[in-house]
């Protein structure tokens, strides 16, 4: 049985965390730790990579594994290099929606296309929270943010469907309300051979909540009521893709063998 004391003694570097009260990032940290513990992987076989943003803070100071805190939008590029250099490593990227789709969208698409065996956990709160709540590619239509005070005129990107279309091996979407499903999904994604992508809808009580006039409890309730497996569009949760495909580092090793002969 995993208890809070066990997690604090074995997996967390330091506490209290710098996250705002009610932020979903702490819950996602909890989910990642529980998934790693269920899988019984040695901590030395895991590397965590993060970019810039609130959610990038989940692995970098708090998760007690080897971690890289990289430049804005480039964690997937760094993680690809890490995986190619040492294919036995389980590489986990924790990135925000602005980081993964706004600044580094190209890296996300090409990592999914080449099917490199990394796990990307994208924390989606619908705006750039660390820099003050600016509009992001994932902000829903007509949602208010700091830079769109009368509502977002553009439309949001359905990231999971884009990554699935780009050719990922595993794609799932959950929210911070669906903790048990999320833990099982992270376990599956880490053990997946190819590129695996999990989008986690998370509450941001500081910026999103202030603009939408909701607190974090109301947002969790909103997740519970609106995000269903039978819903449409960005409200649909669950596993979208779960297939086996040739993986990049394996193909690379095969090619090296073939060329050397």
């Amino acid at each position, binding site marked *: 049985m995993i*208890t809070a004391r066990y997690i604090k003694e074995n997996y967390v570097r330091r506490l209290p965390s710098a996250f705002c009260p*009610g932020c979903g990032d702490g819950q996602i*940290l*909890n989910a990642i730790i529980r998934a790693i513990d269920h899988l019984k992987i040695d901590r030395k076989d895991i590397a965590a990579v993060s970019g810039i943003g609130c959610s990038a803070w989940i692995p970098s100071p708090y998760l007690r594994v080897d971690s890289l805190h990289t430049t804005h939008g480039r964690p997937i590029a760094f993680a690809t290099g890490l995986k190619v250099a040492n294919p036995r490593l389980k590489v986990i990227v924790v990135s925000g929606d602005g980081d993964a789709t706004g600044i580094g969208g190209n890296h996300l698409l090409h990592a999914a296309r080449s099917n490199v065996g990394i796990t990307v956990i994208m924390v989606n709160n619908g705006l750039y929270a660390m820099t003050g709540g600016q509009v992001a590619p994932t902000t829903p239509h007509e949602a208010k943010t700091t830079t769109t005070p009368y509502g977002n005129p553009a439309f949001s990107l359905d990231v999971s469907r884009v990554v699935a279309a780009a050719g990922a091996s595993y794609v799932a979407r959950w929210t911070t309300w669906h903790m048990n499903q999320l833990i099982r999904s992270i376990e599956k994604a880490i053990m997946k051979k190819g590129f695996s992508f999990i989008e986690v809808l998370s509450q941001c009580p500081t910026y999103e909540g202030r603009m939408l006039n909701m607190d974090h409890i109301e947002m969790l309730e909103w997740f519970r009521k609106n995000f269903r497996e039978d819903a449409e569009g960005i409200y649909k949760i669950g596993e979208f893709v779960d297939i086996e495909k040739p993986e990049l580092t394996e193909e690379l090793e095969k090619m090296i063998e073939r060329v050397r002969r």
Partner: protein
Amino acid sequence: MKAKDIVIDRNLCKGCSICVHVCPKKTLGISREVNEYGLFYPEVVDLGSCIVCRLCELYCPDFAIEVVQE
């Protein structure tokens, strides 16, 4: 299953009250006192009603609450 104790680390708690919201048996409530950051931490209202589901531990973003089983 019965809980022996519910340990709440007052200085790790940020007073988000997610644990109070997810508790299915209303074992937890919000205290009237504040911790050193001036935040209202949760308190145990009725320990006997706890069914050790550990949802509070699962949802707590700050690892501040722990259910000790008998």
